[in-house]
């Protein structure tokens, strides 16, 4: 993928994340009003297509944005060769996606 397409992906993933982060912060405050328990959270999220979609999208955006952000930092600070850098970026994105989707599945399924 060209550098400029990666740049576009990072900007789009940031645009996706911005409202999701705001909503996530608001939800956290709302959700703990009556105390915080696993049972209470799971009662809202389990079997919910919408919460699965919401946090699934969040995780996808974070994985893309985080991996590409690390790519920029590592390029500038550690000066890895492009092939190593690109492999690392792909791996970092995959790890974030796997961990994130596992967490989403744990609360939705």
């Amino acid at each position, binding site marked *: 993928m060209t*550098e*400029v397409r990666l*740049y576009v992906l990072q900007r789009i993933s940031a645009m996706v994340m911005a409202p999701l982060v705001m909503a996530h912060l608001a939800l956290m405050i709302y959700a703990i009003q009556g105390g915080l328990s696993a049972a209470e959270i799971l009662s809202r999220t389990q079997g919910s297509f919408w919460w699965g979609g919401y946090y699934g999208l969040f995780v996808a955006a974070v994985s893309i944005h985080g991996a590409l952000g690390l790519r920029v930092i590592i390029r*500038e600070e550690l000066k890895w060769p492009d092939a190593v850098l690109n492999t690392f970026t792909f791996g970092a994105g995959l790890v974030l996606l796997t961990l994130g989707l596992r967490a989403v599945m744990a609360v939705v399924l």
Partner: protein
Amino acid sequence: MRMDPKNLKVSIWRGTPDEGAYTDYAVPRKKSQTILDVVSFVQRYLEPSLSFRFACRVGMCGSCAMMVNGKPRWTCRTHVEKAVDGDKLVIAPLRNLPIIKDLACDMDVFFDKWTRAEARFYPTKNRDDDIEPVLPDNPARIYASQGIECINCAVCYAACDVVEKDPRYLGPAALNRAWTLMNDERDGAGIKRLRAVSGTGGCQSCHSQQGCMTYCPNELNPTLSIAGLKRMAVKAALKGEL
């Protein structure tokens, strides 16, 4: 010219690419004295082997830039009063460029990047065609005019932290020039130049820290030019052209 009794304490970096150190000189302080006057005094009266580069002495040629008390400056138009710290001046070669000797840098890297950025005019007409009208109120021409007074002094290049971190980054000057050409109605490079400025080390590497804008002696805003290139590159990428 009225002489100020006080001397300036001037530390000048002297050396080759392999080794070097600061050497101290006492230079008489004078009215309306520029940094170039100071290094010229050192060369004429104290250290004939001191190397530095200058030509026009009026801020047009872009050859006399140096680091003065840690900041990149065009030395012929920088008064001592503006840059001095008490009575101390520390003068070093431009940051981010290889040193040839003393205050003279190797500018090849800087100009090679202009070439890589396709920062040259690609004509679209020949001598038999009519002259392209250049209307000053055309929006693209306004963008081009905003960035066109660059004198290639490399002050922005020395001020840029991304240049320091990423040797492949094209730098503010080359990208600013590319932006003015992208907005030149007579130029025909189009997507070829956009591809050149959006590859590895291209416009998208800029973090918009605005060091270039802060120190540009001609008060240009390369960060704004680079932002314009980013917009152009993103539009082209979304159309599938990049």
